[in-house]
């Protein structure tokens, strides 16, 4: 999947991945996509809730090798 910006949130724990993602999205323009890599297992549900609440679209959420990959499209 294409993306405009990437956020490496590996090794970070709650709530840092969300806070960093929010900051990154704030610096992007509407319609752009942010790719996030995280290792915090709680981030799967947290990014879903974050997207739902903020209106940014969670395009995909996947796990591979104990890493979690999210694509969020800025509203």
């Amino acid at each position, binding site marked *: 999947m294409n993306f405009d910006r990437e956020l490496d949130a590996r*090794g970070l*724990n709650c709530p840092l991945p969300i*806070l960093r993602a929010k900051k990154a999205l704030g610096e992007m323009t509407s319609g752009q996509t942010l790719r996030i890599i995280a290792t915090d297992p709680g981030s799967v549900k947290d990014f879903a809730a974050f997207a739902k609440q903020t209106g940014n679209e969670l395009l995909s959420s996947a796990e591979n090798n104990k890493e979690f990959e999210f694509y969020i499209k800025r509203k």
Partner: protein
Amino acid sequence: MSTNPEIEELINKRLDELLPQKLDALLQEREESKTPSMAIIATKGTLDWAYPPFILASTAAALGWDVTVFFTFYGLQLVKKDVSDLKVSPLGNPGMPMKMPFGPDWFKSINWNIPNIVQAGIPGFESVATSLMQQTIKNNGVAGIAELRELSQEAGVKFVVCQMTVELFGFSHDDFVEGMDYVGAASFLPVAQKADVTLFI
């Protein structure tokens, strides 16, 4: 002019059907357009209790909420310029695991069950426990308090400080970080009244 009772009954029946639907739609619209808000009272001044207010405040701000944190009593420690001296005490806190943040996994998993009477008697026990906690926080990729506080302020969280306790404990405004409002309970309560979430921590 007299109303035809049949027409009136029909109108009433129709209104009874339509009004709840209309009301539901309006309420939902209002709910969706409203910015959620949270008001937190932070009253504790230890390293462990510094986390909940800042984690919740910064996360709520990231979700787009309006957030106000009212710091009072020992909570004043959390807005001092230097928070590197916040301490945690396992004394009188049976819920706190005492585990070592270094060494092989089998060693790290041991829970050191140290009786309160021993903790109270060893000078410097609190300092040791605090540095172990700080190391554990670092090892786990958990943010420091200063960082979470900065992120909260950057995200627009409003910090208000209880002026009465500032005076009570002999602090001056210079002791605290920039961007504070110094107020009393009468200023905070109307904020809490309108908040969707209010927490006493």
